[in-house]
């Protein structure tokens, strides 16, 4: 077996073992830690190829025609996503204590599904692994959600229907794509092969546009692209803590990853079609400005974090829309940074819900006096979301902005005489979101941690063992934020190819 296959299989086996009665926490944590070390080792060893070739490739043929194969392989982008997955998995499992075994099983399954989706090279399995990860998400919201039974069932249904519908649209789009590229009755699912076809014999621009639109809606729903976002906020606010961490932090990035990995390289002209570009820009501004204002209006910490997570997707979409090398790499960095920071914030939020019994921000206050460590790590998460330099998100955000003004394609290249393009105007408007983020994050920080405490609502710092995942995630934000080249150097080859495809 290849290393990547083992990485995907390990959490599955651990989940099975826990299901069969193995000690839940020890088993899951061991599996997650082994995966963490292993993925880091693979990332360290990885040498990016000039043309975006995949490393660690392995393929098991399942069917000749349609050419279905369980293929795995990784480049810088998928390694970064895998790193994100394993880091958040360790943190999510570590911070779960005194919970039924199902919590661990669900976390492991989501992790395995996400890893499978990020490391597969075959369209069919990319899709199937993602579906695998969704099922425990729904179940956990329905069974262990943090709300009255009525409400959590309603939320679970809403999430299921939305994501189910999104997945179906996505499936239709992928099927259409595969059909368009199939030659002489031979169906091709392998991404590398499809990419070669897209370069040698691209399909017509008109068709590319329509398929791209379908994929954008499908993937977009999974990433809570405006206006298909309304499942996300209640789902995250209701989901049990490890599920919220894993879904908001990791699994949601699948849609963005898919656009980057499948839609952009295979349908470059579709992505640059003016009316599609304008639709996407309007939608992502909806994420940033509309949901940004909605976030300001939230009264509970969990609702606020959930909405902020929807809002920040807008910036990643902005990078994908710009499509230059700088912007695309910025998007990937931002996916990583956002994943860690939102997982950290949801972990803290879950802790506070357990100890305080309420997340109404107006009722809280002065927690910082008794829980300085909690205040510190919350500060890391909050300031990372705000985009403070030195923490991971900033590097991604500024690359998205700079990339939108860099020479690349007709939307980004800046000709002073012609004024700003719609993309540039979108960046200007999106920058106002940076102010909005500061408003709601600092307001929450002020209300929860500063000032004087309300009677009866105190909480203490976590024990040193329980601090490990929190401090660990804060440290990752700091290290990547100070030296983004650690991750950037992994992406030396692959995205340049995508950007070139988009620019042509």
């Amino acid at each position, binding site marked *: 077996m290849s290393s990547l296959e083992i990485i995907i299989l390990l959490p599955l086996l651990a989940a099975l073992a826990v299901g069969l009665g193995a000690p839940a926490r020890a088993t899951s944590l061991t599996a997650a830690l082994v995966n963490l070390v292993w993925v880091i080792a693979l990332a360290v060893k990885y040498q990016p190829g000039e043309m975006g070739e995949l490393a660690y490739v392995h393929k098991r043929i399942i069917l000749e025609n349609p050419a279905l194969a369980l293929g795995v392989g990784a480049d810088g982008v998928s390694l970064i996503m895998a790193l994100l997955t394993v880091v958040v998995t360790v943190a999510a499992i570590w911070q779960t204590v005194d919970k039924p075994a199902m919590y661990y099983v669900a976390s492991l399954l989501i992790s395995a599904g996400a890893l499978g989706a990020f490391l597969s090279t075959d369209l069919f399995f990319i899709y199937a692994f993602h579906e695998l990860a969704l*099922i425990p998400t*729904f179940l956990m919201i329905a069974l262990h959600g943090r709300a009255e039974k009525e409400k959590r069932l309603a939320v679970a249904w809403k999430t299921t229907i939305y994501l189910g519908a999104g997945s179906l649209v996505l499936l239709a789009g992928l099927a259409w794509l595969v059909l368009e590229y199939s030659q002489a*009755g031979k169906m091709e699912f392998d991404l590398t092969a499809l990419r070669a076809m897209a370069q040698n014999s691209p399909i017509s621009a008109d068709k590319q546009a329509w398929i791209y639109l379908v994929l954008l809606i499908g993937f977009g729903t999974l990433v809570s692209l405006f206006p298909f976002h309304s499942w996300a906020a209640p789902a995250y606010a209701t989901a049990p803590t490890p599920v919220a961490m894993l879904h908001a932090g990791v699994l949601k990035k699948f849609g963005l990853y898919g656009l980057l990995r499948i839609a952009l390289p295979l349908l470059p002209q579709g992505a640059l079609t003016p009316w599609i570009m304008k639709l996407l820009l309007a939608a992502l501004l909806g994420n940033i400005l509309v949901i940004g204002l909605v976030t300001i209006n939230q009264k509970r910490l969990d609702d606020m974090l959930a909405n902020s997570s929807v809002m920040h997707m807008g910036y990643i979409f902005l990078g994908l829309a710009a499509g230059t090398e700088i912007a695309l790499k910025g998007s990937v960095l931002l996916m990583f940074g956002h994943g860690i920071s939102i997982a950290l914030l949801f972990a803290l939020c879950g802790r506070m819900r357990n100890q305080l019994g309420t997340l109404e921000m107006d009722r809280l206050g002065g927690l910082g006096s008794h829980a300085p460590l909690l205040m510190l790590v919350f500060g890391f998460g909050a300031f990372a979301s705000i985009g403070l330099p030195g923490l991971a998100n900033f590097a991604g955000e*500024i690359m998205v902005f700079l990339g939108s003004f860099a020479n690349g394609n007709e939307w980004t290249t*800046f000709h002073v005489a012609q004024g700003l393009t719609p993309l540039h105007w979108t960046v200007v408007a999106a920058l106002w979101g940076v102010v909005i983020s500061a408003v709601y994050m600092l307001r929450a920080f*002020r209300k929860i941690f*500063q000032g004087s405490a309300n009677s009866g609502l105190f909480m203490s710092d976590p024990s040193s063992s329980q601090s490990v995942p929190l401090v660990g995630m804060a440290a990752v934000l700091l290290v990547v934020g100070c030296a983004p*080249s650690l991750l*950037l150097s992994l992406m030396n080859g692959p995205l340049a190819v995508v950007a070139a495809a988009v620019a042509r």
Partner: protein
Amino acid sequence: MIVAALSAGPSFPLVPNVLLLLPLMVALVVLIGSRLTRKADGFFQLLSVGSAAVCFIASCILLGVSREQAPVDMFPFLVIDEGKTLNIWIAAILDRQSAGMMFIVTLIGLLVQVFSLAYMKDDDAKPRYFGALSLFMFSMTGIVLAENLVMMFIFWELVGLSSYLLIGHWFQKPAAADASKKAFITNRIGDFGFMIGILLLFGANHGNVSFIDLQESVSEGTLKVLAQTQPWFMTAAVLCLFMGAVGKSAQLPLHVWLPDAMEGPTPVSALIHAATMVAAGVYMMVRISFLVATTHTAAMWIAGVGGVTALMAALMATQQNDIKRILAYSTLSQLGYMVMAVGLVAMGGHGHGEVAEGHPAMFHLYTHAFFKALLFLGSGAVIYACHHEQDIWKMGGLSQHMKGTTVTFAIGTAALMGVPWITSGFYSKEGILIVAWNECKVLFTIGAVTAALTAFYMTRLFVVAFLGKPRSDNAKHAMDVGFLMMLPLLVLAALSLVSGFPMVADGLKAMMPKGHHAGGTAVLAISLVALIVGVGLGWVLYKGKDKDPLKISLFANKFYIDEIYAVLVKVFQDGLAWVVTGLERLVADGIVARLPTMLATWVGARARALQGGHLQSYTLLLGAGLLLAIYLIVFVLPGAAGVGH
């Protein structure tokens, strides 16, 4: 010997590296270390002060560098394709401007840390305080050494963070917590424009935003062509960048955060909110003065904003009663002078470099840093001696028991008023007024009126707080401060006197404007009249008074700007957020989700009928979905594809 070896040899890059990295290391050690052990507070304080001393020595070495150095690359921050695609470095620019500014920052930083040893000795969270001070020194050094616009933006934001941490040092106090939040968010509004400006130049100059290359491009390249063919573009870019300076240097209309920032510990107010950080906006504008000089429109706006800020802040200062707030408004007013000078110099068509290495804004920044830090630390000594009393009307007669503080405060006051020939403030203010006289008589008038107002409110402050009889027990029993607090006052008092003399200013790379300008005599006469009128009025009105004989509520309430903003935030932010939330629910849930919800209810009913339990129905539904997908792809699609061909 050491100076020569360090500045000449290949080891020279050591200096900027020490300046930048040492404070960062110390900040990390102090902040992390103090969490691990609660017993080493004294060690952490000494570490912090010691590193400040080392940085001061390093910046003195920098002063010894006579010729311009090529920028020193320190760390690749965002580099793609070995710089061909994206090339953002953390690198240090070493010239007159950065060397002079480094000296100011490290010297005042060191003095403030020494002062804090005594001032903060009863504080519970000393390591957090000293750690944040070191973090500030790191960030400010980054701004000063910044070699490109993106690097400047990075440290610009970090300075905002350290200011947030230090204003909110006593975060249990609601006023301090609110003030820190207000400061950060107001600065963010300025940074919104700053970032747009950076992006415009990044796009126009093909991804190159280093100051040296931008300057080349302005004198012989893309930007030169642009300035001629598309003048609106340079105006827009410069005004956007200026917006950042408006936030950081607290110019109208984003000035509201600075007076509130006085909730922080007083030494912090001296270092950050008077001498160094708030001057960063001016520093940045002087750095890009070659850009400002390409656009007369933007230069006029900048000069105008500076002038209006100088005047209005001075008016507000005349009616404040809190000693720190009076000084805060005077800081606003003086920063207004500097910003006005930036605009005026550019209106004259000079980029920095053409005016013989001098710039009146930088020169005033330099003298102001010393005397304003002196005044703030002096007010800190007063506040400390009066058991945290800040109302000047509850002081009085302090000169009887606080001789040292009174004398040094008097020197600072004289320098701020610009007492001729013996104080540094006189020389730098003359520099600005002379440019104003030559470029724009309206702004000159504003400058002269502001000078008179400055003399007036500082006389009021000094007479009420230090002379007359004590008006409270705290003031009666005030004792002069100890050696640790007196030492910084003495050093700063000396510098407030001598730093304007050409010899000293040259040695410290102060960028004193050189050369003969028309109108020197007239300007001197008018500023003397302004000084005499201001001091005289203040003396006559306030000598021996127990309460304020003047009541001008418009000034006392700061033109009601804070109140207006509170309403604007309520309506345009919170109100809009409320409306948008309602609409979003209506659209997203009402229309987009209507069909899926109906479908959900329908499926839900079927599923219940089938199974009765929900868990099973979910699993079944999803399992069936997956199977269906596999079936479609494996068996149906090939057929469809075959039909297609």
